[in-house]
């Protein structure tokens, strides 16, 4: 049972090919249109960092809730968190070299009173949105996220070796501290990385909205990794009861994502204040198909596919649900990033999909390598027996 995952030959080559496609797409992007290339990079970098972050968040929540059912699958979200360091490097590089293309609040002319472009809204936000403070915050987020990912992982691996109960107690504490920090940093990072693209606009729901999209796409990815491992003959202890729970998570948070999406939209639509409506106006005018389609594939499709009990207990339907949610939320982040950066000149071509394939390759490569480093079951976890006898 406590076997390690062994990387197959395809596991080593296919992600490399995908990353090569990604590199070609990024280079092509910079040759065609620099702003578009940076926007695509930000979009994919944020999306996959968010998925990795959802892995750590999931582990922390299971520890704090002292949930037993997820012990058998917890090595998968743990391994997903390993991508965060690549996301950190990517985000820092993107901000360092692409900020002029992505975040117009970084332009100096808006803060010069003698310049006709002087912008009193941006001047008002300057205390928060300025390059030094942004950089400090960005580094701090990644230090917190990567630090807690590594600490939780270290405790879990050490538990395998000596079997002491202290590791579990310490993980509960670490998880609780992480959740508090994450509650703040998930919101503020969403403001920084995504909401500040539309620097004039603000929404108090934005942090939650981004967080919940992050969590549900992370759950879908986790589900697909578990199904992949089962397909390869690993994780026999994960039965349909566990998959049912994962499916319930995906279903529930798809609905919750819709709730927040609609809350944000409806209040702005109803109040009809010009400075708020501008966000949806550009989406309605230039991104209508994607914007409405995003709602449909992220709400209606998972809602109908994953609604019944039987559906959540079938591997095939879980694959369908996972792929729908994964692609749907990729488009969701697309609609968050693109209108403020490339505006109406958006494309969905090789550059977008190629970069996505590249990042996906890196993510798969990173996660599978992390999985191969440790046994797939935390064999000394105090709640392991509970997960083996989990019946619902």
């Amino acid at each position: 049972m406590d076997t390690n995952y062994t990387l197959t030959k395809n596991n080593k080559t296919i992600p490399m090919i995908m990353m090569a496609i990604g590199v070609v797409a990024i280079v092509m992007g910079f040759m065609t249109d620099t702003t578009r290339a940076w926007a695509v990079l930000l979009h994919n970098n944020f999306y996959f960092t968010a998925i990795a972050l959802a892995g750590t968040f999931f582990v922390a929540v299971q520890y704090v809730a002292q949930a037993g059912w997820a012990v058998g699958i917890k090595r998968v979200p743990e391994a997903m968190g390993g991508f965060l360091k690549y996301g950190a490097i990517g985000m820092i590089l993107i901000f360092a070299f692409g900020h002029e293309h992505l975040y117009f609040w970084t332009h100096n002319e808006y803060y010069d009173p003698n310049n006709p472009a002087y912008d009193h809204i941006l001047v008002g936000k300057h205390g928060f949105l300025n390059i030094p403070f942004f950089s400090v915050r960005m580094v701090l987020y990644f230090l917190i996220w990567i630090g807690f990912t590594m600490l939780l992982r270290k405790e879990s691996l050490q538990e395998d070796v000596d079997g002491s109960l202290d590791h579990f107690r310490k993980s509960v504490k670490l998880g609780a501290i992480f959740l508090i920090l994450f509650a703040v940093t998930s919101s503020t990072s969403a403001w920084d990385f995504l909401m500040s693209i539309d620097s004039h606009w603000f929404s108090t729901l934005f942090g939650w909205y981004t967080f919940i999209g992050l969590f549900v796409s992370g759950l879908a990815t986790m589900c697909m990794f578990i199904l992949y491992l089962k397909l390869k003959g690993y994780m026999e202890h994960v039965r349909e009861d566990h998959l049912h729970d994962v499916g319930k998570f995906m279903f529930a948070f798809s609905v919750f994502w819709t709730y927040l999406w609609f809350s944000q939209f409806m209040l702005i639509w109803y109040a009809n204040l010009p400075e708020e409506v501008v966000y949806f106006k550009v989406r309605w005018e230039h991104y209508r198909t994607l914007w409405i389609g995003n709602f449909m594939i992220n709400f209606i499709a998972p809602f109908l596919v994953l609604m019944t009990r039987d559906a959540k207990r079938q591997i095939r339907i879980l694959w369908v649900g996972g792929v729908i949610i994964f692609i749907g939320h990729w488009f969701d982040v697309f609609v968050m990033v693109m209108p403020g950066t490339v505006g109406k000149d958006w494309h969905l071509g090789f550059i977008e999909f190629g970069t996505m394939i590249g990042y996906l390759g890196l993510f798969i490569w990173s996660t599978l390598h992390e999985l191969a480093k440790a046994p797939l079951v935390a064999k000394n976890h105090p709640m392991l027996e509970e997960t083996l006898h989990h019946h619902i």
Partner: protein
Amino acid sequence: MAKRIYGIFDDEEILMAAIPALKAKGVVCKDVQSPFPIHGVDKLIGVPRTRISICSFLYGMTGTTLALWMTWYMMVHDWHINIGGKPNFMFYMNLPAFIPVTFESTVFCAAHGMVITFLLRSKILPGVTAPIPHLRVTDDKFVLHVDVKDESKLNEIVGQIKSSGASDVLLKSQQAV
């Protein structure tokens, strides 16, 4: 119609062991009542899947339909109300404003419908005496419901239940002690 008899057990471990043994002898075990949930007992006696989720879906759809009809009738059809200049001539134009009502109504109908259905189906409406075969089933006794199809075999089945570990067998529901 089959006659329902009740095997009284003192311990859930004995009960869990008795059910497969009795089933092997052809005794029809229909239900179990216990003071606390016994893990896995529903699979053991083969209780059919609950249909309350289907009811819930239907009640929810009823709630959705009701709310959409109500908002359409009140706000669009019967009397246009201009609130904040929102378009109110066509239903779909003002639909986002009606979604919260629809959501609440869906939840309301689904939740109340499920509770009422459950109460009706379990025959435990307020004011109705609960059909408990043995009063101590709410305290420390475990009751196994057994159906006897052939009355001539009654004594044999009672003997089988007793020999499987039951402390007592009731032929009739004991409402008052």
